[in-house]
């Protein structure tokens, strides 16, 4: 017993001591004092704890770990307290607050990962922490492999790609006769250095075929071949190049290359392969941009921030906004419907967007820094998460790109008109009511006296009395008559009138709160997310113009047909207000395939108001009047299907009485998540949105409903004189406040004015000059609005696009886990490229991001794009890893040439067509693909280009060539895609409900729909990439499936048959020989050799022999055509 007591007292002492030492640590965190532990405690540690840690933890968490997990070591007390990536792993004396205990209890991390500790072991650990983690005073063991530290500057300094582009003069070469072209001199210089020499020039037919496929992706026709052969001028090739670059097929060919980078698809993959609506608008944008030879910096700017351009590019004929269409690239990724872990899903989507952006534009694998600083490149985890902010500050929508330009003008005119009319109407309203207000007490007294005298309002003497009184008191008899009628109308109406009059005068009248919110009586614990009566322009975020260009302040006069005599209303509260001007919007939708998404079940585009982003703390409430859809967009998730996130969407129809009300949205499931709300108008119902806040709503009292509850109501019945005097003052105050003050009028004043508007005859004679002028003005306003409405472009196609939300930053996620949140990092571009943060009050800052990518000083952007072009033309990049210029990428074979081309590109105004032309006119490009030189020892992979690379056509080019040769090709450009043809081997969820035609209507492959879960088997076999991320270099594989397709696929057979017909009808060739020659020339751009001709002829004759004479001769030609389609030469460009 004694022993026990002693232990306890020692223990207590120790506790005190440890407490002291920890607080000392806090005040002086750098010096660490290890508390003294009792021998018993140390023994307990050695016996029970150290072995336990060693057995279960040290494998991954010690100096001996092969790979240290989570940056955490548990082999020294100091290191445990210091902790790993997730912070300190133990809090002395507080086991329940210690991550170590949470982890072994499987409450946070689940450690050890494979087998849970036994309860007794966990209790031991808890006891140990409770004691303050006794540990002998020893040095932490040295780490087995000291980890390399991340030194961004060093890495940037050491790797070639970060270095500025150098101006290099083309080298001097020995062979002066080969070519003057600077590019050729770079190539030749290297060849000479390696004791190699270029191959001879390719023949004209080969060059032409190469140019056609490389530039437009189609074979030349015999006529085109002959035109070129017959052109003896020195610049014949240049002419063809110009012609091809100018042809619309150029954009279709190079557009497909670009789409590979953008993981372009028209469905979202995942379970139901939902549509990615209108994705094809982006595809069309790319084709047009390439055909227009849009300067590359503009192309990039439009991708990153086409929505933010002050002066967007306008389509020359159709006048729509081109620039905004490019921004779809941000959102071409897979989407998952209703993920259980919604934030993780967001990080996956962001990761993909960043991966695509950085690989495509910069040739960098920034996404490798998701979990840890990049293993090899000068890119930190902070860099990676700094890019998240751009996405957090923006959001997806379907933009009304066709009508934007026109409707922006209309919206601005409407705003001007509104402002102008506001002034005029206010003045006219004032002069209409001025006299009536001034004489209120006179009318009131007289009317009440008369009403008292003549309780039955039909009394014949009444009129006489009114006339008499009017004359005596110098009042307008018509107004007086109205007042008498009002006095007759019963106490309730009168009381309401007085109530609204007397609110702020010293009358003993008490009213229910009118608008406690507006009066600033908010519950202090509730945060207002947005108050549209007091909202900065940046926070008024809308998709389209349905809510005008700004919120409306309280008292704003708006047209209101429910007031028959004066069809106006002063709005009772500052609001984002639906303007009925825009109620006729209509969408032109592309055909739907799969659309299991509740957010696609009602029209949203151009009709939506969004709040700034906020973090959910509990319930969210908003006050609105009218009807709407409200979508709580959690973690930018927008594929709503199934019950899991059903609560995020609410349909709120207008109430018949159309009163303002508070609505509470239960978002408790999303506590801690970032969301914003989207209010979308519902049918043609009116909508005013006043305020959104965290917390429960205030009492749901409508603004203008006023009731008299005070028992002192009786006093209202005091003398009429008294009443009228007070009334006079109140009404005059309200009148003055509303019409003469610079400030926004109070809600009482507004309700008085609205009462007056609703009872105009009490304040003015209908036929008075002022009144007539007012009604005329209102009518005029209405007519002008109507006129304006006619100029609205109501119908519009929509397209995927990005728009700015509120400026936001994201957190670093430690080890890439969204459950392990690190510090906030301000959004900015990569540190290695001198990224700076945008002014955080100015939207997302994407425009500045685009500028940083485009900066002429950026060493990557221009090298990357010229290298991509080179790779498409030569089949191999100067840097072969076209998407990765980082340390793990391959090194440039001709670094000086790369820099030279990048600078040339800048000099030529970043024109893609110019640089392509520049390259294809080199001797290097026009070399033959074979050589007698035996150089396999020196340059087996032809890195130095002593000959041209042989290139296999992509699936798209093969299919397009088949269509072109068979004559089936339809050169129609653009528009909704042709549905994919489904074979019986294509099955699964999300199968398109429409089976496309076998031949894709003869359209080029770029116009065939790309559905993630139903990709074309032919394209897959020929290595068209599965659209998941940037793929700048396609595989070129050889698989039997390719041969089987060319041998047996019904599409290929069908095209052969069409070709067979064409041979007999269109070719105009009579003899068998000529027919064969024509076929050869059509398919492989050359004439057959005598051997080839003989073999083909023999085949035709043989087959003809076995074909009945009555049969269509086209059948035989189809068979030969099929053979030619199966020649290797057909799918290779020499």
């Amino acid at each position, binding site marked *: 017993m004694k022993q026990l007591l002693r232990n306890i007292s020692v223990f207590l002492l120790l506790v005190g001591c440890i407490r002291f030492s920890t607080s000392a640590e806090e005040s002086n965190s750098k010096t660490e004092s290890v508390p003294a532990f009792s021998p018993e405690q140390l023994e307990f540690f050695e016996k029970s704890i150290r072995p336990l840690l060693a057995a279960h933890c040290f494998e991954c968490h010690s100096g001996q770990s092969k790979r240290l997990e989570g940056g955490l070591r548990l082999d020294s007390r100091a290191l445990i307290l210091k902790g790993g990536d997730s912070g300190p792993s133990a809090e002395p004396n507080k086991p329940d607050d210690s991550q170590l205990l949470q982890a072994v209890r499987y409450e946070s991390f689940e450690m050890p990962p*494979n*087998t849970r500790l036994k309860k007794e072991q966990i209790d031991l650990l808890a006891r140990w922490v409770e004691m303050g983690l006794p540990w002998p005073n020893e040095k932490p063991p040295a780490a087995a492999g000291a980890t390399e530290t991340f030194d961004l500057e060093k890495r940037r300094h050491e790797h070639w790609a970060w270095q500025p582009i150098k101006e290099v003069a083309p080298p001097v070469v020995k062979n002066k006769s080969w070519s003057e072209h600077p590019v050729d001199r770079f190539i030749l210089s290297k060849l000479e250095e390696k004791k190699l020499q270029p191959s001879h020039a390719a023949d004209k037919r080969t060059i032409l075929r190469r140019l056609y496929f490389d530039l437009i992706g189609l074979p030349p026709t015999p006529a085109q071949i002959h035109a070129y052969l017959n052109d003896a001028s020195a610049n014949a090739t240049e002419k063809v190049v110009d012609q091809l670059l100018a042809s619309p097929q150029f954009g279709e060919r190079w557009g497909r290359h670009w789409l590979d980078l953008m993981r372009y698809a028209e469905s979202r*993959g*995942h*379970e*139901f392969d939902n549509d990615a609506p209108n994705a094809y608008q982006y595809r069309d944008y790319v084709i047009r941009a390439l055909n227009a030879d849009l300067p590359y910096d503009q192309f990039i700017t439009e991708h990153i921030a086409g929505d933010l351009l002050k002066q967007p590019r306008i389509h020359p004929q159709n006048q729509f906004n081109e620039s905004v269409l490019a921004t779809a690239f941000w959102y071409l990724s897979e989407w*998952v419907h209703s993920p259980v872990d919604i934030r993780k899903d967001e990080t996956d989507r962001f990761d*993909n967007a960043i991966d695509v952006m950085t*690989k495509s534009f910069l040739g960098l*694998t920034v996404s*490798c820094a998701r979990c840890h600083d990049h293993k*090899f490149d000068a890119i930190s985890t902070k860099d990676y998460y700094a890019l998240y902010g751009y996405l957090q500050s923006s959001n997806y929508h379907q933009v009304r790109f066709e009508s934007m330009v026109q409707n922006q003008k209309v919206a601005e005119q409407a705003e001007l008109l509104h402002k102008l009319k506001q002034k005029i109407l206010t003045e006219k309203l004032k002069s209409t009511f001025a006299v009536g207000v001034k004489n209120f007490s006179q009318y009131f007294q007289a009317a009440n006296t008369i009403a008292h005298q003549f309780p039955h309002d039909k009394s014949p003497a009444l009129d006489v009395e009114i006339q008499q009184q009017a004359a005596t008191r110098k009042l307008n008899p018509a107004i007086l008559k109205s007042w008498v009628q009002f006095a007759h109308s019963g106490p309730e109406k009168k009381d309401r009138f007085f109530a609204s009059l007397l609110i702020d005068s010293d009358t003993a009248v008490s009213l229910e709160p009118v608008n406690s919110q507006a009066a600033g009586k908010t519950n202090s614990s509730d945060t207002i997310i947005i108050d549209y009566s007091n909202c900065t322009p940046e926070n008024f975020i809308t998709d389209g113009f349905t809510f005008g260009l700004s919120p409306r302040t309280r008292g704003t006069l708006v047209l209101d047909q429910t007031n028959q005599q004066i069809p106006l209303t002063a709005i009772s509260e500052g609001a984002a207000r639906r303007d009925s001007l825009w109620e006729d919007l209509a969408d032109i939708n592309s055909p739907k395939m799969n659309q299991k998404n509740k957010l696609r079940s009602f029209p949203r585009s151009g009709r939506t108001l969004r709040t700034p982003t906020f973090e959910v703390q509990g319930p969210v409430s908003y006050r609105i009047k009218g009807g709407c859809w409200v979508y709580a967009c959690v973690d930018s998730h927008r594929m709503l299907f*199934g*019950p*899991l996130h059903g609560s995020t969407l609410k349909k709120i129809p207008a109430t018949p009485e159309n009163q303002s009300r508070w609505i509470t949205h239960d978002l408790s499931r999303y506590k801690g998540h970032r969301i914003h709300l989207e209010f979308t108008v519902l049918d043609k119902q009116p909508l005013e949105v006043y305020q959104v806040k965290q917390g429960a709503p205030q009492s749901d009292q409508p603004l203008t409903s006023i009731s008299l509850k005070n028992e002192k109501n009786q006093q209202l019945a005091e003398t009429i004189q008294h009443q009228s005097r007070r009334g006079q003052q109140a009404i005059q105050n309200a009148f003055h406040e509303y019409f003469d003050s610079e400030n926004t009028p109070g809600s009482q004043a507004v309700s008085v004015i609205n009462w007056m508007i609703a009872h105009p005859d009490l304040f003015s004679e209908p036929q008075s000059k002022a009144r007539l002028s007012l009604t005329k003005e209102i009518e005029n306003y209405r007519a002008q609005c109507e006129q304006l409405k006619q100029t609205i472009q109501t119908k519009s196609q929509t397209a995927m696009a990005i728009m700015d939300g509120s400026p936001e930053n994201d957190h670093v996620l430690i080890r890439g886990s969204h459950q392990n949140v690190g510090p906030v990092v301000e959004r900015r571009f990569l540190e290695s490229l001198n990224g700076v943060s945008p002014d955080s009050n100015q939207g997302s800052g994407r425009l500045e991001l685009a500028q940083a990518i485009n900066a002429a000083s950026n060493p990557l952007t221009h090298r990357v794009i010229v290298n991509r072009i080179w790779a498409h033309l030569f089949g191999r990049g100067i840097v072969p890893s076209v998407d*990765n210029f980082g340390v793990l*990428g391959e090194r440039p074979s001709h670094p000086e040439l790369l820099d030279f081309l990048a600078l040339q590109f800048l000099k030529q105004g970043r024109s893609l067509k110019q640089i392509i032309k520049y390259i294809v006119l080199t001797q290097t490009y026009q070399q033959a*693909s*074979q050589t007698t030189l035996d150089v*396999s020892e020196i340059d087996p992979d032809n890195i130095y280009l002593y000959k041209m690379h042989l290139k*296999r056509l992509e699936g798209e080019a093969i299919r397009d060539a088949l269509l072109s040769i068979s004559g089936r090709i339809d050169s129609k450009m653009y528009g909704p895609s042709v549905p994919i043809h489904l*074979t019986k*081997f*294509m*099955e*699964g969820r*999300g199968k398109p409900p429409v089976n496309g035609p076998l031949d894709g209507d003869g359209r080029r492959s770029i116009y065939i729909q790309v559905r*993630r*879960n*139903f990709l074309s*088997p032919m394209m*897959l*076999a*020929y290595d068209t990439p*599965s659209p998941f*991320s940037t793929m700048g270099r396609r595989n*070129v*594989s*050889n*698989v*039997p*499936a*390719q*041969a*089987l*397709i060319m*041998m*047996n696929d019904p599409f290929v057979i069908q095209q052969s048959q069409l070709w067979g017909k064409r041979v007999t009808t269109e070719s105009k060739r009579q003899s068998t020989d000529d027919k064969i020659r024509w076929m050869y020339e059509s398919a492989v751009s050359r004439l057959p050799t005598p051997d080839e001709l003989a*073999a*083909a002829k023999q*085949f035709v004759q043989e*087959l003809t022999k076995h074909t009945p004479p009555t049969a269509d001769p086209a059948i035989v030609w189809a*068979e*030969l055509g*099929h*053979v030619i389609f*199966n020649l*290797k*030469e057909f799918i*290779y460009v020499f």
Partner: protein
Amino acid sequence: MQCGQFRQQFTRRDILKQCANGFGAAALTALMQDQAFTGETTGKTHFPPKAKNVIFLYMDGGPSQVDTFDPKPLLKKYNGKSPGDYFKVEATQFDNVGKVLESPWKFKPYGESGIPVSDLFPQIGGCIDDMAVIRSVVSQFPEHTFANYFLHTGSGLQGRPSMGAWVNYGLGSECQNLPGFVVINGGLIPPGGLDCFNSGFLPASFQGSIFKPGGSGIANVERQEKTSQTQVQKLKLMQQLDRFKQQQSGIHDEIESAISNYELAYKMQMAIPDLMSFTSESKSTLDLYGFNAEYEPTRTYAAECLLARRLVERGVRFVELTCTNVKSDRWDQHSNLKRDHENNARAVDQPIAGLIKDLKQRGLLESTLIIWGGEFGRTPFAQGTNGRDHNPFGFSMWMAGGGIKGGMTYGATDDWGYKVVENRVEIHDIHATMLHLLGLEHTKSTFRFGGRDMRLTDVHGHVIHDVIA
């Protein structure tokens, strides 16, 4: 391609140089290039393999562990009680948490090992002594598509190579006239679509070829010419013309590979009718698989299993079977657990047992690794009243043959069958173990893509040595 971590490197040029005359040699180079169709395995494994082939019996939708291989008597005791009163209920896909739901099936011990299996699988139960039941698998994803990609590719994202592609990339195929990775489509392609079976960033030659268990089996394998004579005539002309071009332009490796592809394609076209014809199978074999079963889905799955055996016999490296359509839903019983789990089990029970027995009697089981499982399990509490929701926190898979220790269980879930408490097994561990049995060290089986050495097991994975014989 940048493997080379575990494969011998021949460049095509080496081979071309060794053989004086182009054409035949070039065909061989094509074989070398396309490992999926290598005549002999040139790749060396990291250590001696126990298994040569894999048959993956994919139970699409997620069978319920507590109703199949992981009996939990406690559920009976607490049947109808609110689960939240006893343990923390995690968010579920459908967010419609009902009461604790006891299994509608009884469990019986089977075999010498006496391991209990539910009445859903009386026939498979009979093979228990060949099976290692792993009761502690976890997935990272509670949604089908993510979980399917994860199960198939080791990543929840689309576009990664499927395990069949990885295996073929690592080992090559032993079959000259069939693809090395075959997916037998029983009628239900899982959520996520064909990308579950794709080659991702690996060359297209490694992608899964989709076979149907009947008819022509595979796309474009039927000639379109009226007579085979015409086709042969055409192919002859093609060969002739290709050769003339070769004389003009010299030898190009790429062209030679393409030429040899035609040879292989033609061989495939010839081999597949034989593969697909079951006439040589004895009646007792057909009966063993369930060809005479009353239930149509059983007959379909029987054909899948038999085709799987025939593919393995021909050296196809990796065969995956997808579920048959039982007219309600795959193993995804959010409601009607009893009726539809029974239908799904009925479709596969006899064919799977038949497959194990047949492989065994032919001496093929020891070199064929069978893996059975879904993308996740199901909750021990009800969704609504008579279904179960997705449960990635603990579920059962089993393996048999191919070096697996039979008649054992590994790992455990808690008393509810909800979460793993012992010997947690990640999907990555299943992959690591599979590769190990095939003789491949998973950390060394890499492919450089996008600046990273990619692996089927990502940066994870531990071989489960305890289940290896």
